[in-house]
């Protein structure tokens, strides 16, 4: 499947097969989850990042089935570059209606970055001015967990983390994804 036909597939699934809800509801719900975590964990932002990632992971384990059923993908990706293309053009398109740019491939084709020109989760957000949040909190960290969980279900162990965020005053919002290995044996995964 070529890159353009993937873009078309993402567009079609988004238009025809996805139930839509108000974007503000999603933004506000996500915002209140993060804000509540920050409060509950007393501003321990490292722990907040971890919890968001864990929640995302549990979403990813489930979301992958919806992704496969709706997109009707039956072919495994030939390589990690294909995987990146599918994540951006089909995955993000059908769930968030955005298409992050793929950039900064490592020479061994095992690491790439997703650059988010827009991020529906972070509309209206300004990080708290407590001197820590700006440097410690990765506000959209749930997305990393979603990708990690979803790829784990299709036999790819990856590490995903943010390296920059416009909320922190960086120029771009960039997520780094690193392929650790392909999982060969099909063992059941534990729910975290």
């Amino acid at each position: 499947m070529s890159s353009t036909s993937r873009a078309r597939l993402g567009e079609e699934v988004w238009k025809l097969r996805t139930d839509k809800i108000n974007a503000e509801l999603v933004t506000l719900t996500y915002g209140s989850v993060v804000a509540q975590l920050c409060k509950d964990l007393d501003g321990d932002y490292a722990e907040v990042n971890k919890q968001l990632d864990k929640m995302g992971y549990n979403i990813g384990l489930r979301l992958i089935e919806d992704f496969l059923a709706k997109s009707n993908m039956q072919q495994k990706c030939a390589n990690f570059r294909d995987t990146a293309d599918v994540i951006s053009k089909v995955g993000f398109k059908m769930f968030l209606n955005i298409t992050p740019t793929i950039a900064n491939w490592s020479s061994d084709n095992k690491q790439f970055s997703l650059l988010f020109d827009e991020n529906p989760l972070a509309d209206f957000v300004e990080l708290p001015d407590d001197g820590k949040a700006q440097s410690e909190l990765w506000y959209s960290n749930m997305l990393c967990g979603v990708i990690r969980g979803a790829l784990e279900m299709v036999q790819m162990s990856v590490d995903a983390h943010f390296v920059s965020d416009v909320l922190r005053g960086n120029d771009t919002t960039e997520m780094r994804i690193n392929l650790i290995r392909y999982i060969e044996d099909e063992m059941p995964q534990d729910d975290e």
Partner: protein
Amino acid sequence: MLRHRQLPVHSLQSSIIIIIVISPRTADTSSLGLLIGIIITTMVVYAVLILNKAGGLIYQRDFNPGLQKLSSNDYLILAGTFHGVHAITSQISPTNETSSSGLEVLESENFVMRCFQTLTGTKFLIFAEPRQQNLDVVVRRVYELYADYVMKNPFYQIEMPIRSEGFDRHLTSYIKPHQ
């Protein structure tokens, strides 16, 4: 992507399913193009089984009489055995392709079985009458229902047996719409 609308009409043992295919490209413009394909088919599905990626049986349900009743232990053995056979068949592909989808269809005089393995390793088995057509469409739809009503239930534990009323209900209304 095509949108299917199914209108089942019950007549004796068989039903006629009219599929109206609306092309999204023409639907967007003023010239609405309708392609009507009429497929006469018998919707007699005997049973649906779902196997998790380890070969454990997580769902089993009979919809129409025709299959032998097994004890729950035998169903587990059947699932485990099939899982093994499937693993073997995916390894012994006679072509040069490095990977094979493994066993997909099993036909016999009295039934046909369709297996669909998702990329996550979950297997869907459908047993139906030998005349039953379009089983791949049926199995895709069952997968969609599974993705919606099983996986999206936050209290469902992944890889565990499925006890979901919503899934049961939607599956029944899809497979036996006229009853």
